[in-house]
Each structure stands twice: as structure tokens, then as C-alpha cells.
């Protein structure tokens, strides 16, 4: 038996989480280093996975399969296609930066009280999330996927609720620090509970659908069910398929999130620390869009096509609505959250446009959005930690005192508005063109998103970075070495993947081709060629 590479990639951060949590209270710094090393090790394993994966080989590779709950046909079944491998690479890549960026986020505020070990907990929870996300990308057993899809809510809940960003600018009414802290804690726990509730409700509905699927199909194996449906040995009534599809889709649409199920995201991203916000939007939420591609489209191709018009409309609303809401935000982190909602609209639109360009673009979009949001949000976090406020109005003229910080913030912003030459442009254009070939009107309306993206990004930059230097930011230090170490590689990646995205598209394209044939769709032919 060959080395179980996929299991190892998920198990390493899981074990790392346990180990980090077990580090004695006095050894906080050791816990950080341990977590960082584990995340780098995971990155190395993900890199090996990427190298071992053959884009032109079988659909699922590096597969592992063991009986788990034999009575119910639940198997421990792993395998990756091009889409999964790309997202595992993204996850493993981002976690070290998240850890490094959050290096001081969980330092105890006052020395002494040490029964509760926040530092150890913070980093252990991040690694736990990483493990569960990675295994979600690997699972080809529906039940196995469901378990981890749900389980990742627990560490996320504690990360959001337990660790605020100590920026209480939003609670100006508070007359004292203590009062501000109390107000922040209330907001935080509200955000955490909202996150949990939304996702739990989604999860419960999905659970019903998972059980329903089992009742119909008799097992949980993605590949077996898809095969059985393809060769006709498994018949599913139209209405059954639609109900099951909706059950799955609902959970993924909460996680992604799709309008109107999005309102938990701004709360969660606003209240969590910046690195945790990145973890939510760049990593965890990707499981939702990934699962749409893998489970909704493959298991329920007909129902997916049936629901396409409605989903496209919701995606379109997300794009425009998210962008407009971002324009109206006064809080930097909530602005980024609404921008993400707009971007998730693009991803979902690309998936359900059912064209090669749309789906390749959507997959690429997941990767690029992960990197660009990380760049923008982490720099925003560095900025917020310096001034102790999330309010845009509290800043001004920062470029004069911290030009490197301002420059990197601008590049993150330009990536967010999909400037050509940076990675997100490639994916956004592919999604747009892939949608346009089948749904021209939808494509054109979505194009308005690019104007709005420029608006919210440049307004944010203008208000925080330009103009006369505000007294409160006059002493602001520029980026430190640790912070540069976080930002510089992300920016380099944004440029590299903008100029040369071929390494990613080469991996993704074959998987998209498979998905397209699952749903029995072919790309529309060019008109001139068709006329000949």
C-alpha cells in the first residue's frame, strides 16, 4: 500500500492542533512556533500532492478507501481532482500567513491569569480548521464530507467568539475601556452565534438531504452514485432529485454565502481578528463553492440545470448588492466582507453558467480570491492594530507616514477590483465571458460589478491613505519585517498568477471538462463558425 498522502495532509494539522493545545501555559511562544512549523509541514505535503497529481490522469487520484461504518455503507474514502488539489494548495498556502499575521493576536492581555491558555487555543483552533477544510476537499464519501463540513463550525465558532481584534472604534459611545471591551464582547458573541446558527441550519437541512440520498442510493460513495446514475442503474425521480439538490445547495449557499443568506458574514468578519476573517472568507467559505461544483453538479445534474436560472439571479444580486453595500460601509473589515459577498456571487455565477470558461474561471476565482482577500484583509488588520479602530473615518494620510503599508494596501485593493495583470482579473474575466456566452444579459449586468469594485476600493484607499495626515496616525510605524513577510509573498503570487496562470488552469481544466460532461453540457459555438 502506498503512503496515504491525502490522509497525512489532513492529519498533520490535526495532530499539530492537539500538540499546540497541549503546550504548557508558560510556553506561549513555543506554541506559536510549533503551529507555524506544522502549517509549513502541511504546505510541504500539499506541495507533494500537487506534484504527484497528474492533471491528465484519472479523475480522482491518490485515492484511499477504507470501510468505516460498514452497516451504513459509510466509507473513509478520499481522492482529489484538479479542483480539490488546487484548493488544498490554496488552504495550505494561506494558513502559514494567517498564523504569522496573527502572531500577537492572542497574546494574553494581562499577565498572571493563565488557567485559560488563549495563545495555544488560538493557534490550535486554526490548525484544526485547516485539517477539517483539507479533508472536506478530499472526501469522496458524502457522509464523510458532511461530518467535517459541519465539524469545522466548532473551532470557527470559538475563533470568532473568543478572539476579538481589540479595535473598539465602532463603540465610541463607550465611556471607558472596560465598557468598550464589554460592548465588543457582546458584539463578538452575537457574531459568533449568528455564524453558528446560520451554518447549523444549513447543515441540518443538508443532513436531511444526505439521509435522503442514502435512502435513495443505498450508499454514500460519490463515485458509485454518479456512476450508477450515469449508467441508469440508479433512477431518481425528478422531484426527489430536486429536493435533494435543494437540501445540499442550501447548506453550501449559506456557507458561500449567497444573497440573501449572507448577513452572517459581515458580522463574523467584522468582529473576528483579521487573520480569522481571512480564514473565514478565503478558506472556509471556499468549501461551500467547492461543494457546489463537486456535489450539487455531479450528484444532481438535472436538478442543477433546473435551478440554474434562479441561482444565476441570486448570484447576480449578490454581485451588485454586495458591491453596493461595500460602498456604503464605514467599517474597513465589513467593507471587505461585502466585497467578498460580491466576489462569491461571481464564483457561483461561473459555476452555474455551465461553460468551460465559467467553471475554470470560478475555480481559479476561488484560488485568486483567497490570495487577494488575504492580502487586502491582512494589511487592513495591520493598519487597524496600529490605530485601534476599524472605522474608515478614523484614518487619513497614512501613505505619508507608512508608504509601504499604503502601497501594499493599494495592491491588495487593486487585486480586489480585478486589475488586469493581477491574478483576480484572469478569473473574473473568465467567469464573465463564460457567463456571457450563454446568458448575455446576466454577463452584462455582472460587468457593472467591475465599476462598483473600483468605487469601493478606491474610496477606501482615498479615505484612509490619502489627504492630510490625521493627528492620530502621525506616529504610525510602517510595516514590520514579520508583516512584510506575510504580504510580500502574497503580492508576488498575485502578480505571478496574473501574468502566468497556466500552472493552475492546466490542473483545473481536465476536472472542469469532467464536470461539464457530468451535467451533459457543451460550450456554445461561436456564431460565425456555427454559420459556416
Amino acid at each position, binding site marked *: 500500500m502506498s503512503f496515504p498522502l491525502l490522509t497525512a495532509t489532513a492529519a498533520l494539522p490535526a495532530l499539530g492542533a492537539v500538540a499546540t493545545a497541549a503546550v504548557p501555559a508558560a510556553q506561549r511562544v513555543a506554541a506559536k512556533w510549533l503551529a507555524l512549523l506544522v502549517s509549513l509541514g502541511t504546505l510541504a505535503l500539499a506541495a507533494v500532492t500537487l506534484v504527484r497529481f497528474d492533471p491528465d490522469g484519472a479523475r480522482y487520484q491518490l485515492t484511499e478507501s477504507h470501510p468505516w461504518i460498514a*452497516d*451504513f455503507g459509510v466509507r473513509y474514502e478520499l481522492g482529489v481532482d484538479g479542483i480539490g488539489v488546487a484548493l488544498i494548495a490554496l488552504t495550505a498556502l494561506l494558513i502559514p500567513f494567517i498564523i504569522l499575521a496573527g502572531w500577537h493576536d492572542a497574546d494574553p492581555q494581562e499577565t498572571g491569569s493563565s488557567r485559560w491558555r488563549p495563545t495555544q487555543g488560538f493557534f490550535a483552533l486554526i490548525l484544526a480548521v485547516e485539517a477539517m477544510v483539507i479533508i472536506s476537499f478530499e472526501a469522496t464519501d458524502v457522509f464523510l464530507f458532511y461530518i467535517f463540513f*459541519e465539524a469545522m463550525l*466548532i473551532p470557527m465558532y470559538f475563533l470568532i*467568539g473568543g478572539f476579538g481584534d481589540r479595535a473598539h472604534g465602532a463603540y465610541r459611545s463607550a465611556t471607558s475601556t472596560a465598557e468598550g471591551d464589554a460592548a465588543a464582547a457582546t458584539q463578538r*458573541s452575537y457574531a*459568533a*452565534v449568528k455564524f*453558528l*446558527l446560520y451554518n*447549523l*441550519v444549513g*447543515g*441540518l437541512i443538508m*443532513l436531511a438531504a444526505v*439521509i435522503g440520498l442514502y435512502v435513495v442510493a443505498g450508499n454514500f460513495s460519490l463515485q458509485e452514485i454518479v456512476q450508477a446514475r450515469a449508467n441508469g442503474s440508479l433512477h431518481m425521480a425528478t422531484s426527489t432529485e430536486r429536493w435533494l439538490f435543494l437540501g445540499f445547495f442550501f447548506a453550501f449557499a449559506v456557507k458561500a454565502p449567497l444573497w*440573501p*443568506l449572507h*448577513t452572517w458574514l459581515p458580522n463574523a468578519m467584522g468582529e473576528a481578528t483579521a487573520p480569522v476573517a481571512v480564514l473565514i472568507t478565503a478558506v472556509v467559505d471556499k468549501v461551500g463553492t467547492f461543494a457546489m461544483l463537486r456535489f450539487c453538479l455531479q450528484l444532481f445534474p438535472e436538478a442543477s440545470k433546473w435551478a440554474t436560472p434562479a441561482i444565476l439571479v441570486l448570484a447576480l444580486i449578490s454581485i451588485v*448588492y454586495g458591491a*453596493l*453595500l461595500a*460602498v*456604503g460601509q464605514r467599517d474597513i473589515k465589513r467593507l471587505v466582507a461585502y466585497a467578498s459577498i460580491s466576489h462569491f456571487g461571481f464564483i457561483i455565477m461561473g459555476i452555474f453558467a455551465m461553460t*468551460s*470558461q465559467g467553471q*475554470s474561471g470560478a475555480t481559479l476565482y476561488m484560488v485568486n480570491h483567497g490570495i487577494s482577500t488575504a492580502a487586502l484583509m491582512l494589511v487592513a488588520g495591520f493598519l487597524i492594530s496600529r490605530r485601534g479602530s476599524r472605522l474608515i473615518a478614523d484614518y487619513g494620510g497614512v501613505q505619508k507616514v507608512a508608504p509601504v503599508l499604503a502601497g501594499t494596501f493599494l495592491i491588495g485593493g487593486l487585486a480586489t477590483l480585478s*486589475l*488586469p*495583470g493581477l491574478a483576480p482579473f484572469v478569473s473574473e*474575466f*473568465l467567469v464573465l*465571458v463564460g457567463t*456571457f*456566452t450563454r446568458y*448575455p444579459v446576466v*454577463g*452584462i449586468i455582472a*460587468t457593472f460589478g467591475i*465599476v462598483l469594485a*473600483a468605487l469601493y476600493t*478606491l*474610496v477606501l484607499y482615498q479615505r484612509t*491613505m*490619502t*489627504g*492630510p*495626515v490625521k493627528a492620530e496616525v502621525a506616529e504610525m510605524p510602517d510595516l514590520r519585517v514579520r508583516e512584510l513577510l506575510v504580504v510580500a509573498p502574497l503580492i508576488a503570487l498575485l502578480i505571478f498568477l496574473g501574468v*502566468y*496562470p*497556466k500552472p493552475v*488552469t492546466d490542473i483545473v*481544466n481536465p476536472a*472542469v*471538462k469532467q464536470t461539464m460532461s457530468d451535467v451533459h453540457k457543451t*460550450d456554445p459555438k461561436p*456564431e*460565425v*463558425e456555427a*454559420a459556416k
Partner: protein
Amino acid sequence: MENLIALLIAAPLLGAAVLLCGGRRLDAVGHWIGTALASASFVMGVVLFADMLGKSPDDRTISQHLFSWIPVAGFQADASFQLDQLSMTFVLLISGVGSLIHLYSVGYMEHDERRRRFFGYLNLFLAAMLLLVLADNYLLLYVGWEGVGLASYLLIGFWQHKPSAATAAKKAFLVNRVGDMGLSIAIMLMFTTFGTFAFGPVLGTHEEAGLTQGASEGKLTAIALMLLLAACGKSAQVPLQSWLGDAMEGPTPVSALIHAATMVTAGVYLIVRSGAIFNAAPDAQLVVTVVGAVTLLFGAIVGCAKDDIKKALAGSTMSQIGYMVLAAGLGPIGYVWAIMHLVTHGFFKAGLFLGAGSVMHGMNDEVDMRKFGGLRKYMPITFVTFGLGYLAIIGFPGLSGFFSKDKIIEAAFAKGGTEGWILGGAALLGAAITAYYMTRVMLMTFFGEKRWQPDADGHEPHPHESPRSMTIPMIVLAFGSVFAGGLFSIGDRFLHWLEPVTGHSEGDSPVSALTVTLATMVLLVVGAGIAYAQYGRRPVPVVAPRGSLATRAARRDLYQDDFNHVVLVRGGEHLTRSLVYVDHTLVDGVVNGTAASVGGLSGRLRRLQNGYARSYAVSMFGGAAVLIAATLLMRAV
């Protein structure tokens, strides 16, 4: 030889990377690195030009394939370049004028502590602009297109501590984004129609007609109109012209290079490049000519009323590009003249802006022409070079502008019918107004009594001639302003040079060329004469008089900004504000409420927010686990 194309772009790109990432230690030499790399680009351009001249006119296109950029099933975008006579013309203009302006900036930005960064941005601009004209497909062109937009954004807002500069930069980018939307949609339309957006297959070559031949006129009209929208944004044509005046917040060399000579003409390049599409879409062409004619008058009228020397010149730029767009809309009869005017305009307008910069340099950065006056005695070189640019732009016989503008007016009449009369009439009228506002600028700046006063800090300006690094570029550009048009026109050289790419047809004008020339001359004298009567014979008041209704309207850019402000800015603010409210109360409330009532949880929800969160979550999770277990058990039994 092909490999030189990529190097041409790579040189300034390298400069931008080195200068922007290099840090303070490059402060002392940064400007020379930037200037050297810009000049390197120009030298390579000259080498390629010499090589091209050695080939037969129909065999001059060379291309270079670098790598496959975005390969996705059915979709192919390459990083590859195409150099033909049209792009060659631009390469020489961009890198030539670009190098001169780099040199000028060495002196102009001498006292700016961020000079290194300025040169980094200038290099970035050159690289993006060269990419724009060398790309062999529309998507790669788009990269250059937004790249120059970014450079323009960074340079307009170079003095970002000034809120007005930051606002102007943002406005320029946003208005351009509206245009970019047009380019996006055009590319998407091309992809659905032709399956590709590379120049060769879509537009065709000498040997082979392009795919445009097979497409319906409706589709081509749609593509052409979207390309026009893009051109309007980049080239500041009505209705997307409002950003150009504000863009004058940027340092003057930027106004000269980006907002006069090169970037703003990219829209003309786009239309001429896409000639095969426009030729097959006459309705779109008509719209193009109308946009051009309206803008050439709009810009000219605005230019008449501005007291800020740079804003007056900006109005003029808008107007002159209007001429080019008008010519480009006329089809093969006008393409060559559009580009010829673009090149001559590149010389004289860059020269005029550099002259304006030189004046400001000597006048404590004053831009109000009412506070100039009599400067010819203090800055003789600036006066002479500016004067030659002035004569060129108004179309003084024998100078560059005379040849190129005259051809456009002729071509407009040759469109025939009522349209021809209207377009030709507008172009003639524009010539008269041009003579008026340029004479006004000339008189207010260099003639009359000196009107300058001490500034707020009590510093009396001491007007002086600028250093050599600034005057040399001005002198070189003045030579271009004087001779370029003549050189191009002797033996129809420019026509023969571009014809293989753009095609050319002679129209049938209802008025003879001589009549057009004579009419232009008469109008030129009238325009200049009125200006002289108003600003030459009488002293210029230091404080602007209230002015007529028309003057006040022109000062406010014919109220377009006010319209934008009320409708778009205010309207947008209301929209977003109400949406924020809706999202917070309605969407959030409805979803929460639905969930709560479905589960009968409203009571618990309230408690939740009071701190029972954790226990609630745990119990819910426990519930889920029990549910799973129960279901599995039931199946097992």
C-alpha cells in the same frame, strides 16, 4: 528582430520594478535609471523602425509569441505581440516623447522628495502604453489599457496629500472603468461571435479577410459601440470627458505625456485598429463621428473660459482628440489623418504643456493666467517654443497642425450629404474657436503687463527661464511641432506608410480642398482677432469678471460635473445608504425571523444574545449528533 518587441516593453517595466521596490538608496540615481530605460526603449524602437523600412510595405508586420497566457477549453489568450506600421508609429511617439518628458522631469521634479517614485510610475506608464499598442489581441490590449489607467491614477494623485489630487485620481479611474466595461463587453461579444479576440483572425490581414466578414451587421455594430464606449473613457470624449480637466492635478510632465500626447489618444488607436469592425458597422461609425464632433466643440468651448493654463490646455486636448475621433469615425478616408493628427498633436500639445510647466516652474507653481502676463521677456526659450506650439495647434500654414487638421476637415466634408456639411461645419467652427482660446492663452501668459502678485506667504515670484534639462525637450518638441506635418505630407509619406494597415479611400468632397483651406484661414484670423480684441488690446483683469451666462457655463465644464454630482454621486449615496439600512433590518431581519419562527426559537434567540450562546450551540450540535445516530440506527434495525 522580433525578440526586441518584448524587450521594448521590458525595459521600462524593469525600471518601474527597480525604482518602486528599490528603496531610498536609489533616490540619488533613480531619475537617471528611469530616463535611461525609457531611452533604451526608444533606441530599440528606432532599430525596429529602421528594420521595418527595409522591407516592402505589405510585408512589414512582425510578431512575437511569448507564452500562452490564459489557456482554458475553447478560450485562448496569448501573451504575444504584433508590430506593424500603426503600432510602430505609436511606439516611436510614446518612447520618443516619453524619453523627452523623463528628461524634463529630472529638472521639474528636482525638489520633490519622492522623485524616484515619480520616475517609477512614469516607467510603469511607458511599459503599459507600449503593451497597449503592441498586443496582438484585445485581451492583452486590455491589460495595457488598464495599466495606463493605473499609471494615470497614480500620477494624477502623485501629490496625494492634497485631497483635490486624490479625488481627481479616483475620478479618472472610475470614469475610465465605465469605459473599460465597454471594452470588456466588446471582448465578450467578440468571443461569442468569433470564438477569438486576436487581431489576426478577427480583423484579417492583407491576404485573408477576417472573421468580421461573416458576422451580422447588428453584432458588429454592438461590438463597435462598446469599443467606442471604451474609447470615450480613455480619450475623454463626451459623455465620459469629465475626468480630464481634474486630471490636471497631476504634475505637469504627467499632463504632457499621459493626458495630452499618448494615453488619451489610446481611444483613437483602438478605433483605428478595429477599422475592419467599424467599416462594417456604418451606424456605429456615425455615432463615432457625432461623438467626435460634439467633443471637439465641447472641449474648445470649455477651453475658452478657463483661467487655469493647464485646464485651458486640457479643454484643448479634449477638442483635438475630438478631431481625431471624428476622423476615425469617417472610415478609411479618415484613419490615416486621425493618426497623423494624433502624432503632430503629440508634439505640439506635449510642447505646450511642457511650456506651461516651465512657466509654472518659474512662477511658484501659479496656474492662473490672470496672474501671468508679459512673461516673454523673462522666459525667452519657453516663449518661443510655446509660441511655435501655439502656431502649430491653430493650424498656421506650413506648421504641423495645418496639414493634419486640414485633412480632417476635408474628410469630414467628404462624408457627403447633410452629415458631411454638419460634421465639416463643426470641424471648421472648432478651428475658429481653437484659434480664439489659444490666442487667449498666449496673450494672457506672455504678453501685456505683468500681473503677478506675492503669494500667501509673501513670496514675490521671480520668473526665470528653466534649466537646460527642461528647455531641451521643449526645443525638440518645438521642432516636431513645426516640421512634422510638412515632412509627413511631402509626397504623402504618412499616407503611404500607414495605408497598408489602415487602408485608405479618397472621398468625394462637395467643397474643394482649396476652399476648405481658405475657409480655415479666414476663421483662424477671425478667432485670433476676437481674442486679440479682448485680451490683447485691453488689460486683463486680475480677478475674473463675472462673465456672461455662457462663460459661466463653460467655466463649470457646461455643468456636466454638477449633473454627475447630483445624479450619480448624491443618488448613489442615497442608494447605498438605504441599502445598508435594508440589509441590516430587512434582509437580516427576515432571514433571522424566518429561522426563528420555523424553529419556534424566537424566545431563545433573545436569550442567546444575553449570553446563553455557548450552551445553545452545544445543545444544537448535540441534537444534530443524536439525529444522525438515530437515523443510522433505524436503518440498521
